[in-house]
């Protein structure tokens, strides 16, 4: 069994690499961009799921950490000439002007900076509980955004940054997404992960069992923020232009939506729903253009896409509360069992997907 699963895993990884190679060479720029976005949203979803889904901290500050990451990575990868072009209103901070780092180092710094901010924020705020924590972290994300809007010499203020080097390739985004998945999976399976889940289930009981609430909450928060920062950096270098308005609450909500649709506390669910939501949003673009329903001609209404999207979202929340996967995870045994059952055709009910 173990051997079979290992072979299947290796095969699927090889298949993914082959697919990426094919996509990198054959897909058009738009398709590659959407694939990149999918992987980045998977990273962001995983990092938020670690905080919200596994540790049970209701945190709405993701956009803030992403903003820190995106700005850091963008400023560190831009060449001097581009920086001078961007900062035409007020000259850029002299120390920042000449610094350029290779992309991986810039991403790492982006993640670390986001994690440092998360630590500074988390240390006081994580004492709060439930909705209060949510609203306080939402507040911090807004504060970060407003500070970025006002720091003209460092972030170029409301004008934002343009012509950020397009360093994000499929290999970077999928590679880091895979890395994030592995790190979070290992973390969840470690004693830290069990402590996180204990905190989620019952804080008081966890504390009574000797789990240090504060330490584990801060740890989960900081690690989540680190990956949010890296994801933000990838996003900035993919989009090529960022400004403070990009990092409004809407962005946090998109990620929250991904983890809720996938199932809070399921890594598999988060990854799947990151792909579904991102491609779904692109797919719905036809709504903004004129289209025909066979007999009626619908004129294009700008914004109809978002109406349909929010309505769909509400329907999902109202009728599929547990999300796609609940707290279940993908496992080969389940898939193989499914195939065997289909071949046999017996009506034996399947046990719900096991935890690996």
């Amino acid at each position: 069994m173990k051997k079979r699963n290992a072979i299947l895993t290796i095969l699927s990884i090889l298949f993914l690499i082959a697919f990426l190679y094919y996509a990198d060479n054959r897909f058009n720029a738009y398709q590659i961009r959407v694939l990149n976005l999918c992987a980045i949203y998977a990273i962001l979803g995983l990092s938020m799921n670690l905080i919200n889904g596994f540790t049970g901290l209701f945190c709405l500050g993701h956009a803030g950490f992403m903003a820190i990451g995106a700005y850091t990575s963008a400023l560190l990868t831009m060449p001097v000439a581009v920086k001078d072009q961007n900062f035409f209103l007020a000259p850029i901070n002299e120390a920042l002007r000449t610094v350029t780092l290779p992309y991986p180092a810039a991403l790492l710094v982006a993640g670390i900076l986001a994690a440092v901010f998360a630590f500074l924020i988390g240390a006081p705020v994580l004492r709060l509980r439930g909705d209060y924590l949510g609203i306080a972290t939402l507040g911090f994300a807004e504060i970060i955004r407003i500070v970025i809007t006002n720091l003209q010499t460092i972030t170029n203020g409301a004008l934002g940054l343009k012509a950020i080097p397009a360093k994000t390739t499929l290999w970077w985004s999928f590679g880091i997404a895979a890395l994030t998945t592995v790190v979070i999976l290992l973390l969840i399976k470690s004693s830290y992960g069990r402590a996180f889940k204990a905190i989620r289930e019952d804080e008081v009981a966890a504390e009574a069992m000797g789990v240090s609430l504060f330490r584990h909450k801060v740890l989960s928060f900081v690690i989540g923020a680190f990956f949010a920062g890296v994801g933000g950096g990838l996003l900035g270098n993919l989009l090529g232009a960022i400004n403070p308005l990009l990092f409004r609450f809407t962005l946090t909500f998109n990620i929250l939506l991904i983890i809720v649709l996938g199932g809070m506390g399921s890594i598999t669910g988060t990854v799947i729903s990151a792909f579904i939501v991102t491609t779904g949003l692109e797919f719905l673009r036809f709504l903004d253009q004129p289209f025909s329903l066979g007999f009626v001609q619908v004129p294009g209404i700008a914004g109809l896409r978002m109406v349909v999207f929010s309505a769909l979202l509400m329907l999902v929340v109202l009728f599929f509360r547990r999300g796609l996967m609940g707290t279940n995870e993908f496992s080969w045994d389940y898939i193989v069992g499914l195939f065997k059952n289909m071949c046999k055709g017996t009506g034996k009910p399947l046990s719900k997907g096991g935890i690996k």
Partner: protein
Amino acid sequence: MTFDVFLQHLTNGISLGSLYALVAIGYTMVYGILRLINFAHGDIFMMATYFTFYSIVIFGVPWYAAFLAVIVVTGALGIVLETSAYRPLRDAPRISIMISAIGASFLLENLAIVIFGGRPKAFPAPDFFTEVIRFGTVAIQRLTFIIPVMTLVLLFVLLYLINNTKSGMAMRAVSKDYETSRLMGVDVNRTISVTFGIGSMLAAVGGIMWGMKFPQIQPLMGVMPGIKCFIAAVIGGIGNIHGAVIGGFVLGLAEILLIAFLPDLTGYRDAFAFILLIIVLLLRPTGIMGEKIAEKV
């Protein structure tokens, strides 16, 4: 800063604070009963301004009739929102209801963009309200006086409703203990609908006043005031109506006075509300008027 200018700022702060208070009451009532941050409240507030705009500008209804109609319609909108988006999730985990609230908020915003258009519109403020009254060198719009008076009147009406009527008693019962009040024969669903209706009507009054004070309306105008009013409710101690009013006044006054005394920080105006919130939460985790909750194990 001369005394005149200070007075001008002070009246401004008080009227802004009363607007915050009006909307914050809606948040606090819903939170008190359902333990839900009603993210769509700010968008109901936005809808009210658009309803007013359409009834006055397009249908030519006189303003007093329009205001009444808008208040009723907005109340109905709140009830519809509650029955469609929150009622099916009564027994669901809190996070689902929260997501549903955020979804409802997005739906309302996007609907407004599609139906009303994204371009800002000018709010048709009646002359009666915008007329400027002069006291020596201080020039103040009549509206600036009407808003706080209106808020206080509505507050007392609301307190009377809650303390002296049967539905008010039901509301208090449901917010104290949901399950037990159901066992005692309180129609919980009806009570919650009434709460949403009243909250939304207050938001409508707030929206109309807001539109007259800041006469530019657009589909996303409800977001920032919505969050700030929620902050006001939390600062005052959520679930407590007096707290919401106090929080609203504190936030409104502090915001205006900050800009008045430290004009350099104007860009940080919106951040200020959040900073105040975090300070209050860290010092008094349940807000100014909130009761200390003992943890039951």
